[in-house]
């Protein structure tokens, strides 16, 4: 049995239509290389790193594998810190500071999640990744034009049909349909209503109906049956994140790894507490006690600033009370095996499932 839809395989020139989700902060070149070796599409997330670091990461991947590379960026509109909100947020967190022996008024380095800008665009122009993907919409037309001029395939994320149509109209070549199950930041950019975010199962066929470009399913997919189901719904590929988090090549710290291993299907929730934007992760203390949704949090990414010292102090005590544990609802399907092997196992299981049902 072959893949029922080869558009993504042929467009990206990869063996299997499986994309490593660009999980900023949790992965780097090491796992990207392993996924490429396994026949999937390697992704390098740039949301939390500098242009210099991004250059270095691509070079590492290029040295090791001849595979195409997906370079991923956030393209939120950067907003300055609002001192009044920061102050309120500090006050809200002050009891936790005192509990950890920290001064609630201490000076803290601002959290940084740089949106795609001219400096990153130069990296793209210089190193020519085959695929460039964006979260939170698309960059401004001038920058997008420069990206497209490099010959890169542009991929972007939709959480509702309206966003998918907008992305296609504004130049996306491939659309990722991100269902509510997905871990990490919701890619939403034309809506802020979390309650109305459809699940993967309902979203994928509706996006497939609404756009002409190939659609990649993301959210809740972590095994062969999920991949087979996504193709039945009309997806031409899948993006998988949580299933890779416990691979030896991921950069997830030991404490988080333990939490992920214990997580059940109902352990995750969408929260805005950790960064100021809605994202799904395993529930920890600050999400439980302050959130999961708190209207008073400073805008993205500023809510993370005041959480920084708390995260460090708690981690020293062996706790993940303030640590981002981004993961989707399929987190318990994740396996501790090398990422190349996992990629091949996922593809094999999907193909076996599809051929069994066809016979």
């Amino acid at each position, binding site marked *: 049995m072959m893949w029922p839809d080869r558009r993504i395989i042929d467009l990206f020139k990869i063996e299997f239509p499986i994309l490593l989700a660009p999980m900023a902060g949790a992965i780097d070149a090491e796992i990207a290389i392993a996924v490429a070796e396994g026949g999937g599409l390697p992704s390098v997330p740039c949301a939390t790193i500098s242009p210099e670091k991004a250059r270095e990461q691509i070079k590492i991947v290029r040295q090791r594998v001849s595979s195409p590379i997906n370079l991923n960026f956030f393209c939120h509109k950067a907003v300055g810190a609002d001192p009044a909100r920061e102050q309120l947020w500090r006050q809200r967190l002050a009891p936790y500071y005192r509990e950890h022996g920290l001064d609630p008024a201490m000076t803290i380095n601002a959290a940084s999640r740089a949106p795609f800008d001219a400096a990153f665009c130069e990296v793209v122009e210089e190193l020519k990744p085959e695929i460039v993907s964006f979260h939170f919409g698309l960059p401004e037309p001038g920058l997008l034009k420069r990206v497209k001029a490099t010959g890169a395939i542009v991929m972007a994320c939709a959480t*509702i049909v309206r966003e998918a149509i907008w992305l296609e109209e504004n130049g996306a070549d491939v659309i990722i349909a991100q269902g509510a199950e997905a871990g990490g930041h919701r890619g939403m950019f034309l809506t802020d209503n979390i309650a109305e975010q*459809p*699940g993967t*199962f309902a979203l994928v066929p509706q996006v497939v109906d609404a756009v002409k470009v190939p659609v990649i399913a993301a959210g809740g997919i972590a*095994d062969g049956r999920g991949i087979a*189901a996504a193709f039945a*719904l009309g997806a031409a590929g899948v993006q998988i994140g949580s299933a890779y988090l416990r691979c030896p090549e991921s950069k997830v710290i030991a404490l988080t790894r333990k939490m992920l291993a214990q997580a059940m299907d109902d352990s995750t929730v969408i929260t805005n507490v950790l960064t100021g934007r809605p994202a799904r992760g395993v529930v920890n203390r600050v999400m439980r006690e302050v959130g999961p949704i708190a209207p008073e949090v400073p805008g993205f990414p500023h809510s993370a600033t005041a959480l920084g010292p708390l995260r460090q102090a708690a981690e020293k005590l062996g706790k993940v009370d303030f640590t981002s544990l981004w993961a989707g609802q399929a987190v318990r399907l994740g396996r501790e095996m090398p990422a190349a092997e996992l990629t091949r196992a996922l593809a094999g299981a999907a193909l076996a499932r599809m051929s069994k*049902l066809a016979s």
Partner: protein
Amino acid sequence: MPLETKLTKMLGIRHPILSAPMATIAGARLVEAVGEAGGFGILGGGYGDKAWLEQETAKLKSATVPFGIGFITWSMAKQPELLDIALAAKPRAIMLSFGDPKPFGPRIKAAGSLLICQVQTEEMAKDALDAGADILIAQGTEAGGHGASRTTLDIVPAIVDFAAGRVPVVAAGGLADGRGLAAMMMLGASGVLLGTRFYASVECEVEEEAKQRICAATGGNTARGVVFDLSRSIFWPAPFTLRALVNDHSRRWIGREVELMQNMATVSADYAAAKRARNFDIAGVFAGEAAGLIHDIPPAAEIVGRIVTEAEQIMSGKQNSAVMSRTAVTR
């Protein structure tokens, strides 16, 4: 023939497609139409309106196809004599949703009917199997009407694994076409249960405008919550909430549920009046996220036929799902 499953054999039907027991709008007419098309229709016994149940089961006396009768378990438990009325109609199966099925399992089975239980967690699946369930329905949060929080993509394989081949598992929530049926079979389900798709069918006993609103909606136009239940003065037990199309009423009250409860008498009176006046800016259309896949109001038999044809083509590899969808839209 890839669509013959354990489920079709057990229910004596040709296609693994069940229509949901949508309270009082899935009447005998829809049930018979689905059954005659080779699927399995389930009468919407709902909360338990005795006169309605007697009237609709009387119509099914002459039915020549197998059918089911569904109840909201916690509500039916308050007037268990309704189960006797249902069993007297000789349904192939009784479907129980939302509540402990154990008190009713033995009576249903003693009367010669199969027990279908709809579940939203593994714990509920365990209770259902303890009650003697012959078929489990794994319902995801995408579903219209009442349900819980886990998604179809998560709960279906989880319940398939939990059932471990002991009973067939039917998938529900967010499905409306052949792609959905094929995908669910990929996840290990033996069939699908569809609500919203049959809501927008000729035979569903609901106002035409409500059906039209489903055709006009996209998947992002629904929300799950307690506003519509509170507005009808119905207190549902946790963890169940209701998904409906977003309208002026839900936009007004979502996020202000406490205030709604404080004003429940007034809100309920206004809501009831709006419902009588068929004002769907206030009255709810209880539809799932699959609303966005629904663009027409065909007879139920045509719905069953389309789904079967599409699913068979996808599963046999004859047709690509993405290509098919475009023909489906232009049809």
